């Protein structure tokens, strides 16, 4: 893809440009926020103290990254209250992979989900490193430097779990369930807007391109562990190697979500609503504002 013209700063974008930037940022920020929200459910419940701390730390990384992306939406005049606490659940754009609940004690799900997610995350960060929008480009290096170990962590667990037949079966179950949802990572929010994201050079690789490389990466690796993706039905238009593949009915990106999402959203916004807040809490008044 030819290098696009650099885009202006947030205040000088045309309506079309701003819409494209916003769609891209919601994809990124919502994924990170929601996957972290799910990961935190494992705190004090993971199989070992080390794995508990590791996953908590990964969740904290992803929350930090969500914040870096939400910051850029704040450039457009939104604030944290608008973006997180008062945004209706039907306005979110995360992939359904990130919002699905974990089965009780289903650690195989964590390993599979984070592997599928982190490989995709590497690809999409690479595709943002030369973004035509400086505010996005400037954040990529920081995020990449904090992502390094996520995929390795997931692979270590998959390697271990697949050494044993019983646990490999559990990994296979998780894979069968999650792989269709992982494909929604690459689903468009809106075809026309996604095309514009590519044309403007906000992202230097298309969703289709990244999805193909993602499949070319995850499928051979999973198969090398004795897992099968044959049972997983990926949609035909989404893959040149596998036929009859199907995406779930809800893909997240277009603001359609699984039932689990409404429950999760209600849960993390519960305190905010119960306390009748109209803005995010601050510990004390800004001294500059006190007469």
């Amino acid at each position, binding site marked *: 893809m030819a290098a696009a013209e650099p885009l202006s700063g947030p205040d000088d974008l045309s309506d079309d440009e701003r819409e494209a930037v916003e769609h891209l940022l919601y994809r990124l920020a919502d994924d990170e926020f929601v996957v972290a929200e799910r990961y935190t459910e494992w705190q004090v419940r993971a199989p070992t103290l080390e794995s508990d701390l590791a996953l908590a730390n990964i969740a904290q*990384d992803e929350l930090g990254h969500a914040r870096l992306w939400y910051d850029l939406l704040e450039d457009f005049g939104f604030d944290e209250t608008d973006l997180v606490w008062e945004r209706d659940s039907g306005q979110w754009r995360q992939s359904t992979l990130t919002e699905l609940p974990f089965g009780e004690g289903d650690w195989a799900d964590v390993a599979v989900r984070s592997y599928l997610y982190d490989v995709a995350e590497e690809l999409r960060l690479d595709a943002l490193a030369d973004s035509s929008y400086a505010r996005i480009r400037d954040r990529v*290096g920081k995020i990449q430097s*904090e992502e390094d170990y996520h995929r390795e962590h997931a692979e270590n667990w998959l390697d271990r779990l697949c050494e044993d037949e019983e646990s490999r079966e559990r990994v296979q179950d998780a894979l069968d369930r999650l792989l269709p949802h992982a494909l929604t990572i690459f689903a468009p929010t809106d075809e026309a807007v996604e095309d514009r994201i590519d044309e403007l050079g906000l992202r230097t690789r298309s969703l289709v391109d990244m999805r193909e490389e993602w499949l070319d990466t995850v499928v051979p690796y999973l198969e090398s562990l004795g897992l099968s993706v044959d049972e997983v039905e990926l949609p035909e238009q989404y893959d040149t190697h596998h036929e009859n593949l199907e995406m779930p009915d809800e893909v997240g990106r277009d603001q359609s979500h699984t039932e689990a999402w409404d429950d999760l959203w209600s849960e993390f916004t519960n305190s905010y609503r119960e306390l009748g807040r109209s803005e995010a809490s601050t510990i004390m008044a800004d001294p500059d504002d006190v007469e």
Partner: protein
Amino acid sequence: MSSDIPYDPEVPGLDDDCEDPVLCAYTEYVEGDGDVEDLPATGEDAEGVEADVWEALYDIEDPEMPVSIVDLGLIYGVEVTEGDDGATVEVLMTLTYSGCPARDMLTQQVEDAAADVDGVARADLRLVWSPGWTIDMVTEQGKDDLREFGLSV
């Protein structure tokens, strides 16, 4: 954080093409290979209000370790614009970690410290992430302080 300063995508004096410095993986610090000749910024050549702002920032310590945030290399620059009713200060700052739980506390402290300096009418803080912070950005004084604290740097 809000900023009314006009948007400026380039951080002055910094190399925007800095090569992805690797840090904090497994909480060990890997030497960054970025071109960060202008960092750490310490304001040693600053004069007037700018020097006073640097001095105020020096007094702020990292919340976890007894080291000044300036010596830690978190401040990438201080820009002072003189106006009729006093100076407008913009502080460019980074954090060692994007998920830093002390983010709001630290940024508030920095804004307040800069705003309290005589002659400053308003202070804004802009968080910047490129080049990403690495251990190379800690000053010699900062390294001494960290060693004193028991860290190996």
